Structure formats: C-alpha cells, structure tokens
C-alpha cells in the first residue's frame, strides 16, 4: 500500500507501470529477444549446413520448418489431443486445489493433516505414476494422462491458494469485525478477493506443468495421436525432422497455455496492489 503515490490518471494506467517502465522502452524489450532468436536460428542453420551435421544428431531449422509445414494437420491434431488432456487436468486440478485450500484455511486441523500429504505429492515425480494408472484405467483411455496432469496442477494451485487465503490484512479483519460481519460475509467480501491473485499465480505455474505432464505421460503408453506419442514414433522411425516438428508443436502448446494463464492473472491482479 503506497501511501505516498499520487496517480490520478485514467483507469488503464495501473496495469502497465513496472512492466515496461524500464530504461529501454517497449521497442528494445521486444526487439532484443527477437534479434537474439533470429541470430541463434541463423547460427544453428549455418552450423548444420557448413559442418554437414547428420539429421539424427541435429536437423536444421529449415528441415524442421519444412516438416512442420508439411505435417501441419498432424501436428495440429497432436496439439489438440494433448492440449485437451492438459486442459481437463488443469480444470480438475484447479477446482480440487482451490476447494481443498479453502477447507484447509477454514479448518486448521485439516490443514495440519493435509500438509505432509500434499508435500509428499509435491515431491513424487508425478509422471512416474503414469504406467500404474494405465493399468488401472486401461491403455485405451486418456484418463491416466488427465489424472497425471490434474495431480501436477493440484500442488501449486493448492499451495498458492492457501497462501492467498492467509493474506488478509489485519486492518481489513478489524474492519469486518467492527461491521459485525458474518464469517461468510467476511470470506466473500475480503478473504476470497484477497486470495484471487494468488490463485491465478498458482494457475499460471500450473498451466505449463499441465501440458508437460500430459505430454510426458504419453511416453509411458496409452492411445496414439498426442504430441508425446508422435515424437517417440517419429524418432523411432528415424524421421528426425518430423520429431522436431512435433517438439515445436509442444513448445507452441505450452506457450499457449502459459500466455492464456498469464493474461488472466494480469487482468485479475490489476487491483490487488493498493
């Protein structure tokens, strides 16, 4: 809460301050990484061409782009299949994480009981559960992958939400007491809105985890069609360019999830600083 700051500008101003406020301005912050990226790609292509590196060691960006373009429909289908699992896992994991965090915040005993269990879930390499889950739900179903993604999502959402629910400022707590507000009124008007930005921070962290988990889970079995399966099958049939094209698809899918979550987070936390 910055008592001293006098900002009386329009409503749109607050979101930007601190983001692009650095020395270089927007042109430099956007241009610099783009230039670096172009330089890396050129260097990569140059090295592959000049040193005649074999495609099974490292295919050039041109080959990958070529394969990506030629198999656009397949890559898109793979992104759709994996993205669907990731999204379902993200939704289930988020709902569970938020609900259990609210319960834990309300009932201290539950929090103390849940803490070691959630910590245990956090350190388990969740994708390692995939083979077990495939035998449980059958190799023909996507359930195991969605389950893995949901578990991976649950942990950061739970911890961030719980932290957010504990951020209520003492002055707000006093205020609600002075209003003789009921527990539910205080939760609705102060606790939940205070926690909301934390929930979305958890969601942002979870968004890329969901994609990674859903994709890696495919390596351990289950139906074909997803990005993970496509990467392994292309690589095993020595089609390295295509394998890398699917990797490119995975990166795009991860970016898509992350950016979507980031935008939502920015929108939600605009008004939580004051």
């Amino acid at each position, binding site marked *: 809460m910055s008592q*001293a700051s006098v*900002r*009386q500008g329009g*409503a749109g101003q607050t979101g930007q301050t601190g983001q692009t406020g650095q020395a270089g301005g927007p042109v430099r912050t956007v241009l610099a990484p783009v230039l670096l990226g172009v330089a890396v790609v050129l260097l990569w292509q140059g090295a592959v061409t000049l040193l005649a590196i074999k495609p099974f060691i490292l295919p050039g960006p041109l080959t990958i782009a070529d394969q990506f373009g030629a198999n656009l429909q397949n890559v898109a289908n793979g992104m759709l299949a994996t993205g669907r699992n990731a999204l379902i896992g993200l939704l289930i994991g988020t709902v569970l994480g938020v609900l259990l965090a609210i319960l834990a915040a309300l009932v201290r005993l539950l929090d103390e009981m849940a803490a070691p269990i959630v910590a245990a879930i956090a350190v388990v390499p969740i994708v390692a559960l995939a083979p077990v889950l495939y035998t449980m739900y059958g190799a023909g179903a996507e359930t195991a992958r969605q389950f893995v993604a949901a578990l991976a999502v649950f942990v950061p959402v739970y911890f961030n939400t719980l932290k957010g629910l504990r951020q209520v400022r003492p*002055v707000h707590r006093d205020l609600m*007491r002075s209003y003789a507000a009921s527990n539910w009124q205080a939760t609705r008007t*102060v606790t939940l809105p205070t926690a909301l930005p934390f929930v979305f921070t958890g969601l942002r962290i979870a968004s890329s985890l969901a994609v990674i988990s859903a994709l890696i889970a495919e390596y351990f079995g289950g139906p074909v069609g997803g990005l993970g399966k496509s990467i392994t099958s292309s690589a095993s049939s020595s089609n390295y360019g295509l394998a890398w094209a699917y990797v490119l698809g995975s990166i795009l899918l991860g970016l898509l999830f992350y950016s979507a979550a980031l935008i939502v987070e920015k929108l939600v936390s605009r*008004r939580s600083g*004051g």
Partner: protein
Amino acid sequence: MSAPEAIPEPAPVHGKAASLAVDVRGVSRVFAGRKGASVTALDSVGLTVEPGEFVSLIGPSGCGKSTLLRLIADLDTPTTGEIRVFGKPARQARIDQDYGIAFQQAGLLPWRTVSGNIELPLELHGAGRAARRARAAELIELVGLSEFAGHYPDQLSGGMQQRVAIARSLAESPSLLLMDEPFGALDEMTRERMQNELVRICAETSAAVVFVTHSIPEAVFLSNRVVVLEPRPGRIRDVLRVGLGETGARGETLREDEEFFHVVSQVRELLHGEAPAGARGVEAR
C-alpha cells in the same frame, strides 16, 4: 492542572449512564507474553465521553491509547473492568453498529472503487442498491471527492484514501466515531487540511469522537478534551479541557491564536514533564 477556561457541560438528557456516549470504568488490559511474562497495556483506566464531544487520547508509544480505542470498539476485550457505549455493553454496541471507525491505514478494499468502498458497510447490513448509491454520493460530496467516485484506491493519494476511509466510517450516520491516528501517515500540510475538514464534518454530523493521536497541535485543534496517557503501565495522567470554542467554529485562524499555543504548551508539559500533583489517573470534574 486545570483547564484554561470552562465550557458549559452538555446537559444530560435522561439517566446519567445512558446519556454517555462512552463510559469506561476501571478497565485494565494485560497481554500475556512468552514464558509467563505479561505486559500491562492499560491499568485501571476510567473515561467518559459525552454525546457530541470530541475527546483526544494522546501519549507516547506504548501508553495503550490504541488499545483503549480497540477496547471501546470491541475489537479486543478488557482483562478487567467494564465498557459501555450508549449505555450498552461494547459488544452489543458493535453488533448494533453504534459507532463508525477509521484506522491509521485507510484499509480500503483495492478491488472496489471509492464509491464501492463507502457502500461496503451499507451493503453488509442489507441496505438497498439505490439507497447505498445515494448515501455514498452524499458522503463523497461531504469529503470533497466527487470527481473520484469511480476511481480505485491505488489511483488516489494517501490523503484522499484517508478521506474515503472517513466517509466510509460515516456511512451509517453513527453517533460515535472512533479514530485511531487516521492522519498519522500523512504529511503536515495534508494533515492540517484534513483536520479542518474533520472539524467541519463533526459539526455537520454532531457525532461524539474518540481520536487517538501522536500530535499535540492536532489534539488541541480538534478536541473539547485532551486525555494525556502515560506508558508502562498505560494510565491516564491528566485530562485537559480545551476551551477554544465549539468544534464546528474552529478554523484556520485558530492555529495562530495565542490561546491555542497556550493549550499546546500545557499539553506538552503534561506529556514531557513530571506528572502534576493530585488528579492522577482521575478525571477532574
């Protein structure tokens, strides 16, 4: 030490106890510390506030002035003693919303507009949408923020935020205002302007005020009575009646007034000097 000039006592309407805005009797508050050590924040304090009276609590850090305010507001309960607000126990008065409160931090909800923040208590207590709107607009006008009704707290200066907090504390037209260093975080110029406004607002609403402050001129400028507290344990050292006229009639010129300086130095002596003989811990009436 006696007050420089006596002002007429407000006439009691009915029974003595019921007519008091605040009646604090023999209140102590002991905070249990670690390893059995305890801190006595307040030690058998007695204080009364008449309806419409402006009373400041002043004293060094740790004298329990904020604790006393929190006890009156029923944000905390006394270890011993009794507090009545408008003749009711403090808890009942809180439930009945007999007071409005403002803290050192404005404590606005950052996700609500100025108008939304002022409407908050009305909303919690079930006022209708139209009634809320109308009351908020009235209060925003009162604190001079009409152009900022739709702004969010982070778009306002500290002084403006505090004005919103004061408007919010007035939302349900309470007959008692509790203020815990509301201008403590403001610069001197903003502070004096806010004091002038508070004097005007008090005259318009005729609410009793209990005002906690660190600032001697602030206490003298605003108050009918200044209660000087001493620390460790928190006790009332003396109560000084300030005869500088009706609260509402006080203006910028008063700050230059001879009498004003006189009272300021009296309070300063009480705060820094030795405790005066007699009248220790009791209210001189």
